[in-house]
């Protein structure tokens, strides 16, 4: 008998991983759904009778009108950002600093967290009419509403991040004799940055929602106003162009925030 034991064929074949997906295919996969949606849109618009083309315009017509309306859209963007930028910046600064203070102090947590639990979930849209009535200008009331809406996610995440500062960082800060404010500024703030950015992403989404909704109410310019205005005049191709454009602006803002996050939080966390 031979000493060599014949090796049985492996009953379970090794899983074929085939290595990483080639880069070209990654980008192809990434755009495939966009192409599919565009194709369905084009086909539906093509099948529909011509009389419906102003209710359901083809992608080409929409793009053409988007191009035509670009100057007006750019002005609207400027107007919207005059509300968005100060409101969002204010929400981030207030939310992050207040969140750090509250997250870093047991007593402040006891005071503020129950309040936040009740007030934060209220949909900020309900404040819009009253804010417009109460504050002198539309812009100031819109800034107030957008700020309020994006404040809560930043605040809640910042305080959660401060609570979640890893024990070793806290120990090191204590061993180095940091004061509470030194600890907040040099340890808790950077350690909580991933949380804060998370809140900033959610907050930015809220800011765009509140901005466009507020503009529907009483604005004379802006992106939300643009969409509302042409819908009122049943100029649906222009309205659709406005929606596409607003989507693009939102996407670009979010991507910019993502890039900023990557740049600021450079250490592994």
């Amino acid at each position: 008998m031979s000493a060599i034991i014949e090796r049985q064929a492996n009953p379970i074949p090794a899983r074929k991983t085939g290595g990483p997906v080639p880069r070209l295919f990654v980008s192809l996969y990434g755009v495939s759904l966009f192409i599919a949606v565009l194709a369905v849109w084009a086909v539906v618009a093509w099948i529909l009778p011509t009389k419906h083309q102003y209710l359901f315009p083809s992608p080409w017509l929409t793009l053409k009108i988007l191009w035509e309306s670009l100057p007006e859209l750019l002005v609207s963007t400027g107007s919207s950002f005059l509300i968005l930028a100060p409101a969002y910046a204010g929400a981030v600064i207030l939310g992050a600093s207040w969140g750090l203070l509250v997250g870093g102090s047991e007593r402040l947590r006891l005071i503020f967290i129950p309040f936040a639990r009740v007030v934060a979930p209220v949909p900020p849209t309900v404040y819009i009419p009253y804010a417009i009535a109460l504050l002198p200008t539309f812009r100031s009331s819109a800034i107030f509403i957008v700020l309020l809406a994006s404040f809560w996610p930043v605040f809640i995440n910042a305080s959660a991040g401060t609570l979640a500062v890893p024990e070793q960082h806290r120990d090191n800060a204590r061993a180095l004799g940091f004061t509470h404010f030194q600890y907040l500024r040099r340890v808790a703030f950077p350690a909580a940055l991933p949380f804060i950015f998370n809140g900033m992403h959610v907050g930015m989404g809220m800011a765009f929602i509140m901005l466009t909704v507020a503009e529907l109410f009483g604005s004379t310019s802006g992106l939300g106003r643009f969409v509302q205005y042409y819908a009122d005049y049943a100029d649906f191709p222009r309205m659709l162009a406005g929606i596409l454009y607003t989507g693009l602006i939102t996407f670009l803002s979010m991507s910019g925030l993502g890039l900023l996050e990557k740049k600021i939080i450079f250490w592994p966390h």
Partner: protein
Amino acid sequence: MPTPDIAAENRSPDKIPPKSKLGELRVENLFFTYDEQKMALEDINLSVPEGEFLCLLGASGCGKTTLLRLIAGLESPSGGRILWRGRPVHGPSLERGIVFQEYSLFPWFRLRDNVALAIEKSRPETAKSERFQYADEYLGMVGLREAAHKYPHELSGGMRQRGAIARTLALGSPVLLMDEPFGALDPANRMRLQELLLDVWSCSSPGRTVIFVTHDVDEALLLGDRVIILGASPGRIIGEIKVDFPRPRNAETLFALDSFRELRSEISSYYHRDARRQIAGESIITSRQEGI
């Protein structure tokens, strides 16, 4: 010749040689419990004269880290007290710098800034540029001057620990507490850092007190003037050894000595006997739980 002096289990405070030197650190009848019932440390009595290099040796879970954290002031004792220069310890202080096993440096600061933080605290009168100069000096002591502008994640584990040592040295603390600082390093790196630590310690002029926590018998004997052996459940002192090997020591010559090997095996057997008793005790409980 080193004289092994493995003391009896029931140490009482009066057996500790009375010393009231200025720089002495005393631990008196220290108890520490967590979760209200589980005893982590039971009646620890310890006296560390100024300038001594003391090693706390024990298996993991025996409470040696807890003891160090209590001495650092990061935890508060449940009973008893800790005295430094005759004054009770309440909370952390720059007089007792601590180096942890890992992650001592803040990852968002460059190495130089990490060290400068300590200098800002120990010498608040210095200007910012001066602080960087001092920081570079301390980094030079641990051979990291070239890496001063790097971030911790750009350094190896050994370099990070050297950086942590530099930062703690920069605090200028007369007492240096080290919690298994080389525990996460590979053997070659560990040996280099042990030698570096001995160099730095022997160079510090007024004689820094070091309390060094380890579970490595070789490390304890290489570094320490005295080794305290801790047993577990509850954590208590089960033995004490004076280590008289001449300094400067280095691992190669020390490990070749017969007297070293004798002492080492003596400690190991003593230290392992308690650990085995532990494991035996645990396995009885487990088999009872699992049995039938």
